[in-house]
């Protein structure tokens, strides 16, 4: 009984000892905060990666892919059996996209992925990340009338409506151009008639400049830069419209230009370059093959004048882009093809959002020559599997590895393997932070040790008295040990409460800090999360508290032993 009483009394009368546990408190709070945020980040990232990557990926080394993927699939189905939830085939190839933005070409590197629109969503969360609600439900590569990204503010007009408007402006521009050309020729004729000494063509141009020049649209880079006319079309205010408008191109030469042999001989069916198609293709009614671009491919996240985060779009659903990618075969050639952006893909992982582009697998196979003309069989570069939630990924992966050894030219990986480096880096960061913070608590432990030694020395007489009254050495030691436990518990408890409170309100705190300092704490242009993700694992909190208390108790063990060893007579002899 006396132990409790004295413990309590010593605690009550020596608030200075509480100062020695402040660092324990801070250490515990920081540990909880750091772990929660790191866990939140990791989990969020893992979820996204996992969602994007599917469970198991069987990839071919060869750019030509696996010609016999049907038999592969069959064997996979047989060996994985029950656990298999979905299979899809994918063709991916490095590519370059050219976006015409206000007459200037922007090129970007891409990871072009040909997907099967029926099965791809079964193996990954792909469709979840699309902007158009209908595409989330059921993916098509067709441009929608409108209604993109209803949950996004300031998303520019997109879809057919937008495309028609652009096409109309382009058409008008083309007509003006033609009118201008006729005008020019007439002028020339006139000049010839006047026999040479007349006005210069540029002056003439001015006189016949289109009356409504404000609405004239710059279409093609080539057109705007046409120097001989000496007049510039004002920029089209809606952003990127650069695309193939065949009639303009052809009319410049005043004759129908033959389609350039950009692609290999096998690919003369590229729609946009096809002569007949070009004549029929009406941008207001037709679209090229659909493409879904990663949102960062088509946009730039930045801050506007008011410091607000804003996405600026170079290209929107409804615009056309040009892709350049290698063909399959022994001598790959670069191939150009036009696609119409039908949606954006926003996973929140900037790596993916800035490099992924999705097109229908059949068209990619066709373009690249991955369909055997004789048999009609196609090749794929990877097969992706989705397993049931409870399935052991590594087990299945190892089994498939045994079945499809590297010699076959394929590699079997789970999504974790593919993102192993990133996950390991995050894991290591967390571990190091934990070690560092525990060291801080250990330092706090030495503070407690010193304080306790002082208290034991100060309490020498009390120890003597207690022993003369019949208290055992163990009893006396436990007074000080209990004191340590109480202090540790107090420090760790307050720290845990403070840490949890901090985590619970972390976004509010970040906002407050932002308001006070004017410095963005959590910059959404960097992280792609608009809130700081946190996860509190109860076990983590328990372990942190146990660890901190252990350190406090260990720090009070030595002083307690000293107290127990103290000779009562020495303690009592003098005042």
């Amino acid at each position, binding site marked *: 009984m006396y132990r409790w009483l*004295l413990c309590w009394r010593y605690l009550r009368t020596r608030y200075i000892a509480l100062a020695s546990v402040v660092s324990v408190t801070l250490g515990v709070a920081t540990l909880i905060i750091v772990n929660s945020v790191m866990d939140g980040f990791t989990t969020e990232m893992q979820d996204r990666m996992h969602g994007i990557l599917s469970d198991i990926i069987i990839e071919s080394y060869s750019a030509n892919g696996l010609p016999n993927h049907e038999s592969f699939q069959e064997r996979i189905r047989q060996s994985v059996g029950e656990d298999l939830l979905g299979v899809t085939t994918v063709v991916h190839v490095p590519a370059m996209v050219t976006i015409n933005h206000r007459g200037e070409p922007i090129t970007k590197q891409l990871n072009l992925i040909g997907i099967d629109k029926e099965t791809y969503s079964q193996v990954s969360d792909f469709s979840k990340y699309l902007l158009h609600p209908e595409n989330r439900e059921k993916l098509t590569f067709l441009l929608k009338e409108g209604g993109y990204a209803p949950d996004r503010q300031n998303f520019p007009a997109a879809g057919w409506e937008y495309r028609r408007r652009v096409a109309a402006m382009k058409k008008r521009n083309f007509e003006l151009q033609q009118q201008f050309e006729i005008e020019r020729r007439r002028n020339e004729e006139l000049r010839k008639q006047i026999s040479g000494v007349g006005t210069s063509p540029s002056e003439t141009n001015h006189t016949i400049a289109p009356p409504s020049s404000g609405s004239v649209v710059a279409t093609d880079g080539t057109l705007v830069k046409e120097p001989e006319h000496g007049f510039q079309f004002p920029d089209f205010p809606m952003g990127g419209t650069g695309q193939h408008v065949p009639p303009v191109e052809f009319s410049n030469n005043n004759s129908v230009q033959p389609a350039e042999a950009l692609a290999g001989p096998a690919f003369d069916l590229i729609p946009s370059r096809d002569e007949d198609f070009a004549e029929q293709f009406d941008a207001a009614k037709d679209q090229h093959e659909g493409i879904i671009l990663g949102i960062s491919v088509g946009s730039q996240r930045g801050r506007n004048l008011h410091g607000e985060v804003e996405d600026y779009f170079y290209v929107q659903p409804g615009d056309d882009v040009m892709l350049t990618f290698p063909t399959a075969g022994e001598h790959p050639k670069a191939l150009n093809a036009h696609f119409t952006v039908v949606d954006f893909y926003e996973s929140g992982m900037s790596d993916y959002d800035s490099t992924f582009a999705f097109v229908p697998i059949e068209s990619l196979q066709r373009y690249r020559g991955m369909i055997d003309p004789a048999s009609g069989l196609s090749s794929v570069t990877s097969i992706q599997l989705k397993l049931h939630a409870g399935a052991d990924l590594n087990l299945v992966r190892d089994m498939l590895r045994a079945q499809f050894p590297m010699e076959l030219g394929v590699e079997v990986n789970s999504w974790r393997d593919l993102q192993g480096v990133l996950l390991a880096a995050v894991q290591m960061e967390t571990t190091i932070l934990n070690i560092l913070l525990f060291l801080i608590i250990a330092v706090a432990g030495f503070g407690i040790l010193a304080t306790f030694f002082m208290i034991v020395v100060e309490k020498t007489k009390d120890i003597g008295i207690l022993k003369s*009254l019949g208290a055992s050495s163990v009893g006396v030691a436990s007074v000080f040990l209990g004191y340590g436990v109480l202090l540790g518990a107090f420090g760790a408890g307050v720290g845990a409460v403070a840490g949890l409170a901090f985590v619970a309100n972390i976004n509010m705190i970040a906002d407050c800090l932002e308001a006070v300092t004017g410095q963005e704490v959590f910059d959404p242009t960097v992280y792609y999360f608009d809130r700081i993700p946190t996860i509190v694992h109860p076990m983590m909190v328990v372990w942190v508290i146990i660890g901190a208390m252990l350190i406090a108790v260990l720090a009070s063990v030595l002083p307690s032993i000293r107290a127990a060893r103290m000779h009562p007579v020495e303690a009592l002899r003098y005042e």
Partner: protein
Amino acid sequence: MSSSAQSLGPRVQPRRRLSQPEMSADALRTAIEEPSATHLRVANPVILEAQDLYKSYKRGKNTVPVLKGCNFSATSGQITAILGQSGSGKSTLLHLLGTLDAPDQGEIYYDGQRIDNLPRRKRDSFRNSQLGMIFQFYHLLPELSALQNVLMPLMIQNGPLSFLRSRTELKRQATELLTRVGLDHRLHHKPRELSGGEMQRAAIARALVASPQLLLADEPTGNLDRQTGKQILDVLYELNREDGLTIVMVTHDEQIAAQSDHVIRLADGHIEF
């Protein structure tokens, strides 16, 4: 309480004024039946006895001999004064008698049983329940009130549960004792709010709360003025007279010694008669 304390328990039943420590039936039977105990009581009412004690302190390389073959005995129910000059080893002797320290040589008997070589645990419980000690400097615990100080031996004796269960009774006992030593108006005062005399009264109450047979007092008036010292002594005399408390009192004051039943003079590590 542990059985060891009971086996050490007094076979003499003195006149007691307060609630008796309940002796178990077993202990009572032993006390009655054991012939040697009866014999001891009749032939030799010595309650505390020391034979040929040696004690020296080591200071660095050289040892300082303090007690050199010291004999001592205290008769039950009487006051024995140990007189000697400062530094003559009185406190050392008292500490040995109170098992706070162990002699280099020699034996100490309490009620016929050797106590100087008892295991630590038994010595602890012996000090707790058979022995009361008071000191020149009172040695109260500064964080606790007078009442809590007095309750301390009972708290040590009882575990938290049994203490809490019998708390009211034990508190009543402590309060009664404090009233007896004349401190009922200072129950909840901290030692620093008490005068020297009051602190010594509280110390006496604390020494006696576990109802011991024997009180060891180390210059209890040494730090008090003559008037207060006399009051303290009166309290002790009264306890001796009314309850038959055996008192061993260290003093360097001849006058005080003269009022005792026995006087033992300590000089040069020996007892002089």
